[in-house]
């Protein structure tokens, strides 16, 4: 067991030495892999953040029921009480036209506009939080509410969230495709760098075979080299994503504030970052393995 561990420790140390001895090449390789990995990693972070918004909104779908402007407030209050009794409805909040106007007046820049209007153009509004969340049930509820006496129009606020969710699904699929293609690219890059490494170490491999090194012993440092390359690529990718999101969030914050939202794109969690490093390392190992099994066999002492 200790001999087995020692063999692996030596192979890892040999790979690390080799890797560090060619700093420039190693750095360029890591950069190439990092850029390739940054795209799916960054896209993932972005989509995960959007996913959070759309599911949050979809769980609590809201319907705005706008009354006709000539509707009687007492009738609207009766309607409010009636809706509260509906099991499909979680909560109802009445915003009277007077309240709505007051709120509008409080909004900076609009006070003058409101004053210029002369009369209140706003309707009474019932903000309904539905207890059902399936698309069909929501549609049915919206239709029913729209047909009630005194109701001018119903608007499902959850619609944009559903659209966002659908868009995110398309985004995720595209991301998966991109990630798949780039994974193949990563394997190809490692395959080639390991091939070059094998060729430059031709003499050492030949001598090692002559003096009784097993195939396993000879290939181990190359596999570790592939692993290290993949992991270094993942670290570069994380750095790129982190820097990219830091820049992006500055602008997003300004944009989100205008919507009264504190939305920002979250960085990958520790677990996700580690998963990225693991996957990249695994792909590097795989590429190295393919290269090794193709080229190492051909080098035989003569």
């Amino acid at each position, binding site marked *: 067991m200790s001999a087995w561990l020692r063999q692996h420790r030596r192979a890892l140390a040999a790979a690390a030495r080799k890797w560090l001895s060619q700093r420039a090449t190693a750095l360029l390789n890591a950069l190439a892999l990092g850029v390739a990995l940054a795209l799916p990693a960054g896209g993932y972070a972005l989509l995960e953040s959007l996913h959070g918004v759309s599911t949050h909104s979809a769980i609590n779908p809201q319907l705005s029921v706008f009354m006709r402007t000539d509707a009687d407030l007492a009738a609207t209050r009766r309607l409010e009480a009636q809706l509260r009794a509906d099991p499909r409805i979680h909560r109802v909040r009445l915003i009277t036209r007077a309240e709505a106007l007051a709120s509008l007046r409080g909004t900076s820049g609009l006070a003058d506009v409101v004053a210029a209007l002369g009369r209140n153009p706003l309707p009474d509004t019932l903000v309904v939080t539905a207890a059902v969340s399936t698309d069909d049930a929501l549609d049915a509820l919206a239709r029913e509410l729209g047909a009630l006496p005194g109701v001018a129009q119903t608007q499902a606020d959850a619609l944009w969230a559903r659209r966002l969710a659908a868009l995110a699904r398309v985004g995720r699929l595209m991301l998966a495709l991109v990630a798949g293609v780039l994974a193949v690219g990563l394997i190809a890059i490692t395959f080639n760098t390991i091939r070059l490494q094998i060729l430059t170490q031709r003499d*050492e491999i030949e001598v090692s075979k002559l003096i009784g090194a097993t195939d396993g012993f000879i290939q181990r440092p190359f596999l570790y080299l592939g692993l290290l390359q993949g992991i270094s690529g993942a670290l570069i990718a994380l750095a790129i994503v982190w820097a990219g999101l830091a820049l992006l969030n500055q602008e997003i914050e300004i944009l989100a504030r205008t919507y009264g939202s504190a939305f920002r794109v979250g960085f990958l969690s520790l677990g996700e970052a580690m998963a990225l490093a693991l996957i990249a390392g695994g792909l590097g190992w795989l590429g190295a393995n393919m290269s090794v099994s193709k080229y190492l066999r051909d080098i035989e002492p003569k």
Partner: protein
Amino acid sequence: MISFSAVSKRFPGGKEALRAVTFAVPDGELQFITGHSGAGKSTLLKLIAAIERPSSGTVLVNGQNVGTLKRRAIPYLRRNLGLVFQDQKLLYDRSVYDNVMLPLAFSDHPPREAARRARAALDKVGLLERERANPIQLSGGEQQRLAIARAVVNRPSILIADEPTANLDVESAANILEIFLAFNRVGVSVLIATHDLALVERYGTRVMRLAEGRMLEAEGAA
């Protein structure tokens, strides 16, 4: 123990390097193979180390049939052989010491024991004080001695050398031969291929002559 029985080696293209060669090197013997270049000496040695496989006949090394050995088993055969080549196959990207350490890397010795063995091997060939040098800085004779140190560091029971004294002056050649004799005295079987007949006559105990792939005669007392 090395034994060949009716071993032939035909290369692709039809060249017959060895024709029905039969001989044996008993344990603890020192034996020479002579012959002109192209007589098949190198091919014969390569068959022992499974670098080449025989076209027909049987090659036995310590009771193992080398010709039918599985690829996976070859490294373990070679660990029991000390191989010294005409072109020493040294690695010039590392020190003398690291060249000798190479075979110890996969032999599971604890680091301290490996270092001790490497220095012992260098000491035997008189290169201990050059351990930090790069092989490229060594003379021809010293490079050959380094190759021998690397070959014996794992204490093989059989030592095989292909033209170990080629391109060496008489004094260096004698020095190399003395080293082989010293290993033979402690029980290592030694098989040396050489075309240097003067050398063979001076030290030769058992001599085999190859010509055009055939074993001509075995001279000297056993």
